[in-house]
């Protein structure tokens, strides 16, 4: 009787996970294996072939001779190196601000979070209009302060900065809330003790808040890095990678290769390379989390 109940529980256990296992297996696990295989193949997408010819490491070797990909790689790296520190710092400072217990602070938190709940498509369109050289808000403001009109997204030297400003505008509120929930986890006693010992506000923040928040800081930096490496939608909508390839990024390049130029095998190799980069960031994160740094 006892054994029978155990077997019954096991059968139910398998039954309950079965739908999830089948779906995840089909649309998440199998695709990982398939992606690696595809990266060693060449496809004729137009004839609708599902099986490609093996070409060894050709796709990977091509990637390192493909100037457009190297350019996209460089742009993505530049984008990440600018966005991660600026956005994290903005989020942290604003979290300190909205952590103050004053009247109406909830309203400010809500306002700061508004861009986060709008989709990237919507925000990209907003900002494409804002940057419009003919009627855009950005030039109106510049003119108001007596500055000259700019071309923004049409100017190769300004386009990437414009995309960066838009991305930070959309996302910092999300990281602000993460910092805020970290800040609220710190007990007030610590600050009171520091105040009694004669520490200034600045000292308290740099010697208490920062060390106690290091896990949150790490989490935010890693998340921002991942998001930046995978940036796609704003580029698709605002610049199509231009002008002069100045805003071409890795995922945009992969998508173009796969679905516009039908180089499915080559695009897969690029996707594997992107995955390896992201995996390295993940491993770095896990290592740091385990060691008590």
């Amino acid at each position: 009787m006892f054994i029978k109940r155990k077997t019954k529980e096991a059968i139910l256990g398998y039954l309950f996970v079965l739908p999830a296992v089948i779906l995840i297996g089909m649309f998440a696990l199998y695709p990982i294996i398939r992606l690696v295989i595809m990266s060693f193949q060449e496809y004729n997408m137009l004839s609708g072939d599902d099986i490609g010819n093996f070409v060894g490491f050709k796709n990977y070797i091509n990637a390192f001779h493909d100037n457009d990909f190297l350019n996209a790689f460089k742009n993505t790296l530049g984008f990440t190196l600018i966005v991660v520190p600026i956005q994290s710092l903005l989020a942290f400072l604003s979290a300190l601000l909205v952590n103050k217990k004053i009247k109406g602070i909830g309203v400010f938190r809500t306002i700061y979070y508004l861009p986060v709940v709008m989709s990237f498509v919507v925000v990209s369109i907003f900002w494409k209009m804002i940057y419009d050289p003919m009627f855009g808000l950005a030039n109106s403001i510049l003119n108001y302060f007596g500055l000259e009109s700019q071309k923004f997204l049409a100017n190769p030297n300004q386009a990437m900065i414009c995309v960066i400003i838009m991305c930070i505008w959309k996302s910092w509120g999300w990281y602000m809330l993460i910092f805020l929930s970290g800040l609220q986890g710190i007990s007030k006693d610590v600050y009171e003790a520091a105040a009694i010992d004669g520490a200034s506000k600045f000292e308290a923040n740099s010697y208490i808040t920062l060390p106690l928040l290091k896990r949150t800081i790490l989490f935010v930096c890693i998340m921002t890095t991942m998001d930046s490496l995978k940036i796609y939608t704003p580029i698709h909508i605002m610049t199509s990678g231009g002008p002069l390839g100045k805003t071409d990024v890795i995922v945009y390049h992969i998508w173009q290769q796969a679905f516009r130029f039908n180089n499915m095998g080559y695009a897969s190799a690029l996707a594997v390379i992107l995955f390896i980069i992201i995996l390295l960031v993940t491993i770095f994160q896990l290592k740091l989390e385990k060691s008590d740094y």
Partner: protein
Amino acid sequence: MKKQRVFKKIILYSILVLISLTIIVPLLWVLVNSFRPDEDIGRYTKFSIEMFFPKNATMDNYIELFKIYHFGRYILNTLVITAIVTAGSLIINSLAAYSFARLKFPGRKLIFTILLITLMVPGEVMLLPQFMIIRKLDLLDKFSALVLPALANAFGIFFFRQAFLDFPSAIEEAATIDGCGKFRIYSRIIMPLTKSPIITMTIMTITGQWDSFIWPLTVLRDSKKYTIQIGVNYLFGQHSNQWGNIFASAIITALPMIILFLFLQKYYVRGITSSGVKG
């Protein structure tokens, strides 16, 4: 001393208001322009009060979205897909999570770990093989191409499992003694008592589906099947000089998510704290 405190408060509020303006001014500009005829959008470009109060306010931009640009269909498509995915993934993920949290079966840990591997691979990377599979299954241009891959995911299972593990098992033991079966415990006891995680997850799924862009962009060609984000993008690409309509379409697309957020704010915050961050 008191004077100094008031002064500090004024500075604090000024900074808070200044940051708010960087968000509100662009939003207001878009909103106002969505009520303007096209020729007015190019006219009021001087940064002044006039810029933020439409003179010849009109609803035409919005009406045309539905009459000419099929936004009714896009919204309906998105609502149907979102509803199916939200309900389906809620049941499938939570049932699996309950099994992983409470039932004992050989290989439980191993299966769970293997599922978690998929969390490390970003969707942007999976796009290509997923496209090949959907094409092979002949599901391109079908709603099931959007629904099936979204019905189960490791994050959802992980999320619910965490919630169930926090749940005291004494109630379940009492129910078992009373002769209650495992599925009844799941559906009658566990689920009704995990309301808050369910709402949090539901919001995440709804916003994820409503905002979804790169995947529908990849598998949909037929404009009758477009979801809202693809519809906006299409309007923006094909009729780029219809400024008023574009402004209105962006507002219409953003509005439901803003309303959802304003009403259910506390669950958004819970979603953040539950995503595994600790200070």
